[in-house]
């Protein structure tokens, strides 16, 4: 109890004007109930809302009645009241009657027997229609203490109980409009459609999941360039003449490729942090993704580089190029063309893998949709999430197909832009050993 409790008797002329008096004069109100607060379960106005009043009654307060004086604009006409009484953590049984005065907006709870003092009250007033305009409102509450000895029943009040919500955003307004449409009702009468493609939820989910989509995309876009560098570096380490360097690369590649990404995420987000090593969430996520896909890319690059015929390297060397010049100007450019389809596939996999970060609380697409589903009990958000993933993956899958086709053509000289026949004789510059990195990578994780 941080502040002195004061009491004041309020003479009650009528409930209607009492509300106004209370609001104006709350600075001088006495509060006997402690820890009183009011919360709402909705964050936007203009809809049926549940109000939860929580408070603990005072030492000498056997309460017989509680009144909620809903302000102007709030419509509790169809409200339902739930009362939970606790003594400490123990639930007390109770029986009560509720009454609602739609004119004054007063919801009253009348207990059949006075509630023992020092009880925890949890009163939920459900299905109160709120005004659409957001803001901070106050809900004045009055309670009646049982007459004791000579004194008559006393009405006390609790004020300063504020709650707030926002004006509904556009998608919310649309969604509510859909509620009343006949075709929507018909559509939703089909169980599958209602569960997976409910228009109202669809409209809500699209803007809400958009941020998650951006997060997923930004994670993979940040990680992938690092992966390319890391993958290239690791590929060269794996091809090194120095055995320990080669081993190191092999161990890294095999450990990463041989364990689930999910586990790697937990190692960084839970394991490392438990030992005190922590980076911000976003950075950690990018690091895990980059670490993971570097290992895959390393194998793709290595296979790609080794698929370039030895003659290319020898030709470059015979012209006086150093190892790195040969790599930079001759081998890598050819490798890139060859690994582009596989790299794109890896990008697609990595993009989908961002979903795993849902488990560690990164608000990407999957977590947002899970959250949405959990809150709405409707699976439409998953369909929306799927669409968001597909926006990225379908064009890329297409691209992979086209790249692979082009590559196959150029490797076999099926067409040449000028229509010229390519050299016969089987020792063409591109016919290196079969390039299997693609096949190796097409497995899923």
């Amino acid at each position, binding site marked *: 109890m941080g502040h002195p409790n004061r009491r004041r008797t309020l003479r009650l002329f009528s409930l209607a004007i009492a509300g106004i008096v209370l609001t104006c004069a709350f600075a001088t109100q006495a509060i006997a109930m402690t820890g009183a607060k009011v919360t709402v379960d909705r964050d936007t106005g203009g809809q049926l809302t549940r109000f939860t009043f929580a408070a603990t009654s005072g030492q000498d307060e056997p309460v017989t009645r509680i009144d909620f004086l809903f302000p102007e604009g709030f419509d509790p006409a169809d409200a*339902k009241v739930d009362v939970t009484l606790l003594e400490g953590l123990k*639930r007390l049984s109770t029986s009560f009657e509720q009454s609602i005065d739609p004119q004054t907006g007063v919801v009253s709870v009348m207990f059949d027997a006075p509630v023992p003092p020092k009880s925890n009250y949890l009163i939920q007033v459900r299905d109160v229609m709120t005004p659409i305009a957001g803001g901070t409102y106050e809900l004045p509450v009055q309670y009646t203490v049982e007459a004791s000895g000579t004194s008559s029943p006393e009405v006390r009040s609790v004020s300063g109980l504020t709650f707030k919500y926002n004006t509904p955003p556009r998608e919310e307004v649309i969604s509510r409009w859909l509620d009343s449409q006949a075709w929507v009702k018909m559509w939703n009468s089909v169980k*599958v459609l209602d*569960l997976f493609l409910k228009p109202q939820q669809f409209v809500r989910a699209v803007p809400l999941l958009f941020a998650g989509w951006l997060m997923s995309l930004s994670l993979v876009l940040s990680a992938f360039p690092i992966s390319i560098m890391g993958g290239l570096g690791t590929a060269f380490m794996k091809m090194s003449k120095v055995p320990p360097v080669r081993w190191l690369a092999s161990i890294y590649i095999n450990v990463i490729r041989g364990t689930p990404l999910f586990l790697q995420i937990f190692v960084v987000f839970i394991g490392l*942090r438990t030992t005190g090593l*922590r980076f911000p969430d976003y950075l950690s996520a990018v690091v895990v993704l980059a670490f993971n896909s570097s290992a895959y890319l390393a194998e793709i690059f290595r296979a790609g580089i080794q698929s370039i015929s030895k003659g290319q390297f020898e030709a470059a060397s015979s012209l006086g190029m150093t190892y790195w010049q040969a790599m930079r100007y001759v081998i890598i450019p050819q490798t890139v063309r060859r690994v582009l389809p596989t790299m794109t596939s890896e990008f697609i996999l990595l993009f989908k893998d961002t979903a795993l970060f849902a*488990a*560690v609380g990164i608000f990407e697409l999957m977590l947002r949709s899970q959250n949405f589903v*959990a809150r709405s*009990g409707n699976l439409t958000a998953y369909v929306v999430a799927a669409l968001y993933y597909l926006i990225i993956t379908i064009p890329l899958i297409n691209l992979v197909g086209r790249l692979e086709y082009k590559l196959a053509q150029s490797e076999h000289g099926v067409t040449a832009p000028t229509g010229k026949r390519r050299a016969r004789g089987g020792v063409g510059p591109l016919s290196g050993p079969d390039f299997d990195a693609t096949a190796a990578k097409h497995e899923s994780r």
Partner: protein
Amino acid sequence: MSVAFIEGGFMSKGKKWVALVLAVALVLAVALTGCASKTDTGTSDTTGNTTKTVTLKTIEPGKLLVGSDTAFPPFESMNGNVAEGFDVDLMKAIGEKLGLEVTFKTEIFDTLIPTLKAGGKFDVIASGMTIKPDRQLEIDFSDPYYDSNQSLVMKKGTTYTGPEQLSGKKVGVQSGTTGEAWAKENVTGATLVPFKNATDAFAALQAGNVDAVVNDLPVSTELLKDDDRGLAIVAQIPTGEQYGFGVSKDNPDLTAAINKALAEIKSDGTYNDIYQKWFGILPE
């Protein structure tokens, strides 16, 4: 090699469409039929002096399939691949009364209700689920079988002064639970981080990924019982919530039968035995 690889990797356009249409048709067919054969089971009610036969619809005849997020000790948890816990024993006792063999199926908490509604996977939810009006819009609940409250868990040694303390912090919750709802309503200004289950949330708290976790009190108590992770319950949050078993609105007979069985179990002492077994004390 490359040619084969292209053909292997990509169906021709025509084939792709056929496959797509077939897949969609299959999904719809399965979903519409609910992929379950509903069979009637005659159950004898032998408690009264008159023997009345209740006809119960279950997905598999003679069986009661129970959906549960089995990472919620002491209510339900997996011991190897066998579910155990207060809810499990209670459900088994109820199954016995109904003449049905009880089988537990693990399902993530926040998909329990949609899955039950969709039908075909399980008949009942027994998952420490609080009876709440918004849930009652979706499914029916049995009579309450357990009184619960919430808890706030933080690093050991933290003094908790009130919800304001969590403003600007990260609060871990289990997705779809009353703990989440409480936090959403009461801890304003905090970022709520949803987890699949309480165990994950506690791991995140230990790792410092979140600053606090709101979770059902009995479960927190159980999970932190022999805790060496430096976590502690810093506040008990009286919510007076009550757990109930969830049943599809299409199956009111089952709800009634469960209620009847529950009442019997309570009166014949079975409930107390199970309570004692899992909480070490008798219910008040």
